[in-house]
């Protein structure tokens, strides 16, 4: 049982390092960073308490939002998905990413108190 899990994981890692392009790996690194930040914020909240709650929410939502937008960007610039996004060029995806982030940051800063 555990054997198959380990083999699946190792296979996955191997495929990942070889098959994915550098560009995507850069985005993945960014996503990983966001994930860690969000997780650490959540850990703090669990350990120390929810005061001040609005600040915690702002930070956490920021991480979650950024993660989602990053995932969207990754999907859109992945050449394998070109067929699904015929009208959206890479630059366009990036521009959308920036615009959405502006709105996200506005909301987060408003809420952070």
């Amino acid at each position: 049982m555990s054997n198959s899990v380990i083999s699946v994981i190792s296979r996955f890692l191997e495929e990942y390092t070889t098959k994915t392009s550098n560009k995507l790996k850069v985005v993945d690194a960014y996503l990983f960073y966001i994930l860690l930040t969000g997780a650490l914020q959540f850990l703090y909240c669990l350990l120390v308490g929810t005061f001040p709650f609005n600040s915690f929410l702002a930070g956490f939502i920021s991480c979650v939002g950024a993660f989602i937008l990053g995932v969207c960007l990754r999907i859109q610039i992945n050449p394998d998905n070109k067929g699904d996004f015929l009208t959206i060029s890479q630059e366009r995806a990036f521009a959308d990413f920036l615009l959405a982030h502006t709105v996200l940051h506005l909301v987060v800063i408003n809420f952070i108190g």
Partner: protein
Amino acid sequence: MYVPTGLFSLVLLTVALGAQALTPSHHLSLSDVARLQALLSQPFTDLASAYYSIVGLSKLGASVADENDACHFLKAQLDPMSVDSLFFAAEASQAISDCEIPVSNETRDILLAAVSEDSTVTQIFRAVSALSSLGLPLASQEVVGALVARIAKEDNVLAITTALQTATRLSQQADFGGILEEIEDLAARLDDLGGVYLQFEEGLEATALFVTAAYTLSDHVDTEPPLKEDQVIQLVNSVFSKKSWQSLSEAFSVACAAAALSNNRFQVPVIVSAQGPATVSHNQPILQLLVTDVLSNPLASASVVVESAQAVVSKNVILTQAPFSLRDGIFELNFMTSQPASGYYQFSVAITGDTRLVASQVELKVKVSTEVAITNMDLSVVDKDQSIGTKTSRVDYPFKAKGSFTADSHQNFAMTFQLVDVNTGVELTPHQTFVRLHNHKTGQEVVFVAEPDSKNLYKFELDIAERKSEFDSMSGTYTLHLIVGDATLENPILWNVADIVLKFLDEEAPAAIQSKTLYMPKPDIQHLFREPEKKPPTVVSNAFTALVLSPFLLLLILWFKLGANISNFSLSPSAVLFHVGHACMLGLMYVYWTHLNMFQTLKYLAIIGSLTFLAGNRMLAQKAVKRIASK
């Protein structure tokens, strides 16, 4: 309105509660008459004021201070060319004995000329009065004609009243038919206020002058005035409700009305009131009544009879058809000879002797008071289970019981007594029979009510255990007082009967202090501000801040390992502008957090954002072109 309409509702209530026969509620008492006379005795300022004073005082049966002086004043102030002047002087001189106003042919002509359809009613009245007072001849029928014509033109209350007054100066043979009808017409114009007051909206003076004119004219033609009894009484109420008069003419009108009402051939309102409080008792058995006219002159020719005297509570009729006897102008009746029980009695009094009397049926409430005596006061301490026999002590008023009584929670304290009327021996049940227990040391006071049983024997029982909460379980010596009182008792009683020592089972501590501190300032309340929430220690916060920021380092390391670089960075103006703009936007976010509000931020964001967008658009387009070209 000179009758305050605030009284209206009160009046309505009074009427609703007890309007049998209407009786006058206002008249001129002796002090009012004196005040009226004083007002009329003011020094004269002009001929008009002299007229009002002199004639007014004569109506009240008084006279001016110095008649000679007055006469000289009249002669000096007289203007023989003016009808008004002649009127005032002539009328006033009639009221003074030995005062003659010189008359000339011119005077007569002027006065006769004033009697015509072209003069106002007032002018006609003054001319006619002057002619009649000066003894000059006048044609009555002509005057009547002129008056009738004027009334048709001047259809107001004062004008018609003046016309009526004029008619009183004419010869009795004249045809008064049309003018007499005016009395009834005017009476119909009176305003009824709550069934108690009847007055003209023009005011007190108009009403008083109307009363005077109506009665004077009725007397003159020997016809009964068309006023019903109720109307007469309402007029009396209206005219005499005001006790201080604003002007000389107002005072004059009231004086004339009073004279007319007290001395005319048809209707004389009678005022009945008790002399002093309407109370009789054994010491003062005589009920005294004052029967007067509106000027407080006693009516000597009247005879006063009690038609019935009925007890208010029991409705027993004590007296019927008992006459009052007249003594020194006061009507007296010895009510105690009928041996009434104490209480209130409704007297129905009738005044006869003169057919002119109005409001001769009067209702009076008379109180019969008496003295109370306490008999058979027995005190005892009874055991609850009644195993030990009771020991009763008799105490006599006003003495105190010898020795104190002791009672504890197993016992009851009992008190019985009777209240009797000193004079008749009848048992009484006064309104207030209280038993008061007072603790000198703690200042406690507890009051109970003693109630009579069916045989009118008063009983008071104190169950010590049951009542301990009223005493706050404070044991000690209590003085016992009996309080007896009633409106019909002349000797209310406060009697210290005995001392009782009460023993309670559990003693509660300072209840007395509570009563003392009841009116002392209460302890201050300190306001508790909202406490700030507990924050974690700074060390923890700082540690976690560092921890949260650390993944950024990891990101940089990962990117470095992946080989991400900025070698492709073209220094085109749009690229530079884009990056600068983007950096500004991020900076704006920080400034928003620290200083700005949403509106300002949006404003700046719009500016910077549009610039960044344009630059970014350009830059990305260039990049796209480059990418496609390199493919």
